């Protein structure tokens, strides 16, 4: 199978996944939960039945699920995900537009740190395997793996913020600074483009804790896989040949060993992306970071179906598209994959 065919097949599959998620989520969130009008309007719904009826009619709340789904799909085709009662009935698309950039900021730094810490410790563990250093590294990543992200986040908050006052406890930036204007939509990139380094520094300081919390939880997978693939490769014949040629250990280890040992990490990347994106939901809530995870939890608590549905679709879109990119990259680096 050639590469283009492979990419098309993966893209069709990704679309199919997205469609089924939409349907499942829609039916679930509309079919089973009771009448949401009370949590939308509060006491007003009871005091003014005509208001409740008007809202119900406007948002098609009393229609059968499939009719509601039809309206939802029509709206979606026009780029409209509905209106969010937990955010004063703002359009869901608008709220996601405000929150998604912050989630992407955390996600980017968390993935970056996961890879840096994971690869670094994996290399060290392989270099010094079966020594106390190797054992210590295993103990550290097991501890990280076993801890839920929100727990790691709280511990970091207790130690680094409340005990030592090193980093801010929450938020995404210092609100007293000049805010960057809208260029790409992602505040950290925009501030760099504008030369607003003060804002960038503040945003960077605010993103450290949440992304470190996620990196601590997830770097272990990278370390573990890299360590074992590194050990396996260092016993391969071509490494023996390189040694026989008289190359020095450092060149062999990094140039011949590490480069090949990194391959399995590429195949892991979609898994890591999925974990980190779902992990942002927790750390955003702990560090009051104004991303999509905070919005989702608000929507969950307020029976805000359009909000739940919209964020779920965007989460799945982010995850499915990054998985697609990872799979295609993997197929580019390793032609064997395309045969499967």
């Amino acid at each position, binding site marked *: 199978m050639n590469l283009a065919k492979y990419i098309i097949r993966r893209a069709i*599959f990704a679309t*199919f*996944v997205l469609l*089924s*998620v939409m349907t*499942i*989520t829609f039916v*679930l*969130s509309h*079919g*089973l*939960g009771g009448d949401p009008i009370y949590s939308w309007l509060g006491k007003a719904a009871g005091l003014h039945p005509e208001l409740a009826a008007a809202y119900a009619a406007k948002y098609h709340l009393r229609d059968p699920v499939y009719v509601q789904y039809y309206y939802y799909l029509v709206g979606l085709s026009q780029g409209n995900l509905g209106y969010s009662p937990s955010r004063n009935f703002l359009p869901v698309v608008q709220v996601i537009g405000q929150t998604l950039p912050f989630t992407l900021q955390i996600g980017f730094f968390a993935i970056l740190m996961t890879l840096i810490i994971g690869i670094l410790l994996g290399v060290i563990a392989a270099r010094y395997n079966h020594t106390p250093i190797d054992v210590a590294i295993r103990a550290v990543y*097991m*501890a990280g*793996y*076993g*801890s*839920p*992200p*929100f*727990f790691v986040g*709280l*511990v970091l*908050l*207790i130690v680094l913020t*409340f005990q030592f006052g090193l980093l801010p406890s929450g938020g995404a930036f210092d609100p007293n600074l000049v805010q960057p204007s809208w260029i790409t939509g992602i505040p950290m990139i925009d501030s760099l483009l504008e030369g607003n380094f003060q804002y960038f520094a503040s945003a960077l300081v605010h993103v450290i804790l949440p992304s470190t919390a996620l990196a601590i939880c997830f770097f272990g997978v990278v370390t573990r896989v890299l360590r074992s693939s590194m050990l396996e490769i260092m016993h391969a014949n071509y490494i023996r040949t390189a040694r026989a040629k008289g190359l020095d250990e450092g060149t062999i280890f990094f140039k011949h060993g590490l480069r090949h040992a990194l391959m399995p990490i590429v195949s892991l990347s979609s898994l890591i992306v*999925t974990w980190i*994106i*779902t992990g942002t*939901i*927790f750390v955003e809530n*702990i560090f009051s970071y104004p991303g999509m995870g905070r919005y*989702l*939890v608000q929507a*969950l*608590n307020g029976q805000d179906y359009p909000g*739940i549905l919209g964020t*779920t679709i965007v*989460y*799945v879109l982010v*995850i*499915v598209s990054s*998985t697609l990119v990872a799979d295609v990259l993997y197929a580019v680096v390793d032609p064997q994959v395309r045969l499967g």
Partner: protein
Amino acid sequence: MAQVKPKSHVSSRALGLLTKNPETILGLIVVVTFVLTAVIVTVSNLLGLQITPYDPLQQNVGVSLAAPSWAHLFGCDFLGRDVFSRVILSIPNDVLVSFCVVGVAVVVGALIGALAGFKGGLLDELLMRFTDVIFSLPVLVIAMVIAVALGPGLIHMTVAMVVIWWPPYARMARGETLRVAHQNFIEAARFAGQKTTSILFKHVLPNISITMLVYATLDVGTIILVYAGLSYLGLSVRPPQPDLGEMISSSQDYLITAPWLPIIPGLIIAIIVIGFSVLGDGMRDVLEAR
């Protein structure tokens, strides 16, 4: 080629290999303690006995936010409830949810995977594409939506997770079935005129069960982590019933005055998860050494 050996021989040798690794023994101790605690708590609850030092639901404002001491091993929460007693009472939740999810996922996955692998053709294609779709859904987000739709509760939590948990088992079962299906003893059973279902249950499934058991052991830890997340978001038990995730989220306002309140339940979760994954690692090493 893996041969079917007499069962007792395999298990006694496997047990010998397992207990050689101190890490695995540690994991085994954690897992056994965890399960035993759950059983004892459940039985005593059914009998109406209180085995915890204090009533886990009893509020006592006098000792609100008390630090850990001999009287209150893990301290007291903001309502003066004994945290140790609450931790003990929440252990059965994790055992129930994780074992149910993994159990149902193994059974459903094994059946789907074995059927797809054994029958092949269109059925295989349909079942595996369906599995692929479910497999690529983000577990936590979907479980969250299902949990919200069903409302809080342990059983609802279990259902929400089971729905999306089985695909890896189906893939594993299919792969193993394909591997086993062409071995002589299966061909022999087929020529002997046995029905597909009886071959599946008598010959194929027992052969794939060990691989699945190892994966399931590793998986329990992941389930407990996801469950803790759902519970942290307030989707599990209803207050005042305790749960480890809920204990962390409800103590978030006391990070400065009583940091042990979120730390202790978090450590318990971590110890349980690490216990299962260390045990699973040990089991996998034994399996690979075979």
